């Protein structure tokens, strides 16, 4: 009896929020850690932004969550026909760090682990300092996937460089190979390890994190599959991020939800990529920190 209850309970756990549900967080599922099913119809869920919300049970419906092997398979294939790109407008960034917070929540990272890191940059002695959010560049010629001995990190057809931490052997060759310092390692038990024990691994969010394996920015591939923007993009209060599909030539601003032509944004904004001369062909483009919306508040580097 106890067991059966538990099974039913687990079923409820594998549920997703209906459209009428709480504050549009589609990742509620992937990040919910525990459901307190009380006698009534209320249920407590943890959202990706770390809030506890009470949800009516009737709003939950069973979801078709793929098994681990299915998840790994579809995670390797990517989203057909898509070609994801990100544009970061440096003139808008004022180091609010909401992107970093949302990212760490989504991917269950320790405070010192950054999939996206807002750096204070200064290109030359007399040039102006600026803030530069730096996610994984999702290179089209990725140095990291080349060196992986077990194909645990790989390039998907939609352009995302993903990690399978069920396969990673922890040799850290990819960290050595990445010129953007985009990768982090789980040197210890990951954050909240006990809490997520037994939760099925989701390759597209790389959660739960695993001790002794690599993690890095995945463009929130799990959210993309649900038709949502990556968590850093939608968390930004200042309109720094544009994200979209190169094949459609459309990128959407995470803050204003405005959609523009990707090629036009690049050409009009004089976009560039980081360390172009290394030949890594990044998928993350930067618009220069010109006509700053905010004064630079950091220390001079």
């Amino acid at each position, binding site marked *: 009896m106890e067991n059966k209850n538990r099974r039913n309970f687990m079923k409820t756990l594998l549920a997703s929020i209906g459209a009428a549900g709480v504050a549009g967080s589609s990742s509620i599922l992937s990040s919910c850690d525990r459901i307190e099913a009380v006698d009534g119809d209320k249920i407590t869920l943890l959202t990706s932004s770390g809030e506890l919300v009470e949800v009516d049970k009737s709003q939950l419906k069973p979801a078709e969550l793929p098994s681990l092997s299915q998840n790994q398979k579809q995670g390797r294939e990517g989203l057909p026909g898509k070609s994801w790109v990100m544009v970061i407008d440096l003139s808008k960034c004022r180091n609010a760090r909401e992107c*970093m917070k949302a990212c760490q929540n989504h991917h269950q990272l320790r405070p*010192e*682990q*950054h999939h996206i*890191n*807002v*750096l*204070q*940059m200064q290109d030359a002695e007399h040039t102006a300092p600026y803030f530069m959010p*730096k996610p994984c560049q999702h290179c089209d010629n990725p*140095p990291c996937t*080349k*060196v*992986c*001995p*077990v*194909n*645990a990190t790989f390039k998907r057809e939609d352009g995302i460089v993903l990690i399978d931490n069920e*396969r*990673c*052997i*922890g*040799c*850290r*060759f990819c*960290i*050595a*190979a990445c*010129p*953007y*310092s985009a*990768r*982090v*390692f*789980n*040197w*210890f*038990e990951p954050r909240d390890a006990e809490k997520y024990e037994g939760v099925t691994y989701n390759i597209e969010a790389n959660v739960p994190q695993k*001790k*002794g*394996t690599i993690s890095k920015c995945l463009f929130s591939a799990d959210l993309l599959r649900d038709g949502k923007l990556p968590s850093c993009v939608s968390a930004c209060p200042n309109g720094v991020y544009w994200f979209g599909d190169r094949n459609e030539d459309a990128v959407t601003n995470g803050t204003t939800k405005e959609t523009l032509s990707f090629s036009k944004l690049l050409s009009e904004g004089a976009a560039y990529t980081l*360390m172009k001369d*290394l030949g*890594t062909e990044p998928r993350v483009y930067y618009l220069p920190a010109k006509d700053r919306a905010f004064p630079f508040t950091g220390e001079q*580097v």
Partner: protein
Amino acid sequence: MNKIESPEESRKKFDRIFTDLTRSIVKKDELTRFWFFILLMFIGVGLWGWIIQIDKGLGVTGMRDYVSWGLYIANFVFFVAVSLVGLLISSVLQLLNFSWGKTISRAAEQIAIATVALAGIIIVMDMGRPDRLLNVFLHGRFASPIVWDLTVVSTYLAISVLLFYIPLIPDLAIMRDRMGSKVPAWKLKIYTILALGWNGNPQQYAIVYHAVRVLMILIIPIGLSIHTVTSWLFAATLRPGWDSTIFGPYFVVGAFVAGTAALIILMYVYRLRYGLKDYFDDFHFDKMGRLLVLVCLVYLYFNINEFLVPAYKMKSAEGVHLKDLFSGAYAFLFWFVQIAGIALPIVLIRIKYFRKPLPLSIISVFVLFSAWFKRYLIVIPTMEHPFLPVQNVPEHFHHYAPTSTEIMIMLFSFFTSIFIISVLAKFFPVITIWEYAEEKGIDRKYFTEKS
């Protein structure tokens, strides 16, 4: 060599050689026991450290997200380097017909086996998930230099073991026939089994000669590969300090320096401990000293290329790295390594006095230490200087300092390799008896006579 006259004289002489060269096996004293006790203790402590590391995660080391390779990888490169002495001494020298190399080739193979085996072990100890080692075979990607490294390192180990074992077979037969009550029965049984029924007929010798010759040739490309591929683990990345086209030969020559120094030290230890003054004699040390100067000169040439050319240009990222080495945090270590590891041996060993056993061995100790620190300097400073600034992480992410657990595991690797050499010396002669006797003009027929 001149033939020896009477059978009595031959027998007498062979008896002497046999007694001298099996002393390492027969010798039983407090010092031996104490030595093995020390070795096993350190091995135990190191294994305990590894258990801690597996339990708590690689975070018990000083490595973090920026300096993500540390002592273990430096140690790995060091071990691969030292193991190359097997290639140099027991293959290159023999193929070039330097007969003095015969006497020292078994000691060289001991070093090769012990160090390349440990290189394999230390790399597993560096893994975040050693439990997934099999993934390398299940999901191995041939585009990854790690898979190349694994392939050549295991092949090199296999060939080195064969190169140790095959010339040993006649010796095993000699020991089987002559050891009698000098060793316990189980040891005698091991010799009997391993001797593979050797009876010393000409066909058997022909097979041994042929097999050894094939292995000597085979080991050259494999040996060059292991260190070249190891250098590619670094050179295949874009990082300043590693992004170099001469890393392959630079590492190989550096390996010859380290290996030669290690062999000189081992020769000196054997000479002292097992009374082999007449076997590892001044002549051998003189030759080894000259060899060390030669490889050091070539290494100097590569070092000048590796540092002077980028230092002339001072490209931005490269410049940061070089300044750190030349005059920054690593300056002391860097100049120590260049002077004690390269310049000093070149200058000193050219003087005859310093090619005597003791002075040469002392210099070799410095060379070997420098060789280890050289690997440290190759691995760590580069990782401390990524292209983008290191920010928003705790202070200890910026700089690397090994922890005690890491040092325990490193000591494990040193002591285990010394343990392997000690066990090999305890079981098998450290110089090939039959080759040596033959060199001295003793006829083969005396080898298999029962004493």
